[in-house]
């Protein structure tokens, strides 16, 4: 990294990467909650694989952020020793697993955003960010395909699976806009060539989701005022419960390791 080519404060780059790590961490943790509880053995393993992909992305983004910060904290510190309002994930990814359709819809919505977003980010001028994003892009392409194929089968399946898929879509749709609501930091990162602007990938999201929904015979919910605030540390009631479970061990036994 040549400092002259990058006039931005390293901490702001780190703060931006931590957002991406936080998104992946919460969704990865949510999916890990399915382990041993998924509808079939095959899907149990599939969901655990997706969870591990996301935890891997989290670690890569956190590690790079910690390096940019100058080593004042490490990846475990970011994951286990921050409180609710310090996390910067979008609210979609902290939503409950609910039934299988809820989980699948949440995953379609996130991966339809994350796939084109990481593709764009893989052109970052920071080679490490570009590398992480290139790998994440490949992973999210599969996530989108897997969850998309499931949603098609749920929507175009039985009357009950259709109703549950549509209900999940209606419930989660208000969290979609936040994925693309770029703020000053997003734009600063995109303009400097370090990051990518989430607002730019909305058309790719729309066409991917449109294709899945039409095959799934599901109705795209009307645009409505959405939930916001995750990027500013404002979260729904679910995040605190998630953290209570995820952070318990490190809080009770600080520094515990395998």
């Amino acid at each position: 990294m040549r400092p002259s080519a990058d006039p931005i404060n390293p901490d702001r780059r780190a703060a931006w990467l931590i957002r991406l790590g936080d998104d992946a961490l919460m969704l990865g943790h949510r999916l890990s909650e399915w382990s041993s509880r998924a509808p079939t053995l095959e899907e149990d393993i599939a969901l655990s694989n997706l969870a591990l992909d996301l935890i891997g992305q989290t670690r890569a983004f956190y590690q790079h952020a910690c390096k940019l910060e100058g080593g004042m904290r490490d990846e475990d510190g970011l994951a286990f020793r921050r409180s609710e309002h310090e996390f910067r994930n979008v609210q979609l990814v902290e939503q409950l697993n609910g039934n299988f359709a809820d989980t699948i819809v949440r995953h379609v919505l996130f991966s339809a955003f994350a796939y084109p977003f990481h593709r764009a980010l893989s052109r970052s001028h920071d080679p490490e960010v570009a590398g992480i994003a290139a790998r994440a892009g490949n992973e999210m392409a599969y996530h989108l395909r897997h969850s998309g194929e499931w949603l098609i089968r749920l929507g175009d399946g039985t009357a009950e699976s259709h109703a549950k898929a549509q209900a999940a879509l209606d419930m989660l749709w208000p969290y979609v806009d936040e994925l693309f609501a770029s703020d000053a930091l997003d734009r600063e990162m995109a303009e400097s060539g370090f990051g990518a602007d989430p607002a730019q990938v909305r058309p790719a999201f729309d066409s991917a989701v449109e294709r899945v929904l039409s095959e799934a015979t599901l109705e795209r919910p009307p645009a409505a005022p959405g939930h916001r605030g995750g990027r500013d540390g404002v979260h729904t009631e679910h995040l605190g419960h998630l953290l209570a479970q995820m952070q318990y061990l490190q809080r009770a036994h600080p520094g515990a390791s395998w």
Partner: protein
Amino acid sequence: MTEAPTPLWEVFIRPRNGLAHRHVGSLHAADAEMALQSARDIYTRRGEALSIWVVPSSAIVACDPADKGMMLEPTATKIYRHPTFYEVPEEVGNM
């Protein structure tokens, strides 16, 4: 409520160029696309595959174990069919 049983699929993976697809196991899936995805998730977690096949188990025709004597037994006793009379050079690799 009764449900039709989810179809069974046999999974074959080709681990490297030059090797044949090898049967690695089976799984349940509603259709071919989901079977392929499950095969990817279950049998290639550590990067074992260059290629994956899934085949409906119902499409496999198997010999009857009761016919073992007629079908399989005689070949083992014909030693002239076994290429054990020369050594395979190491450079040949997988055969």
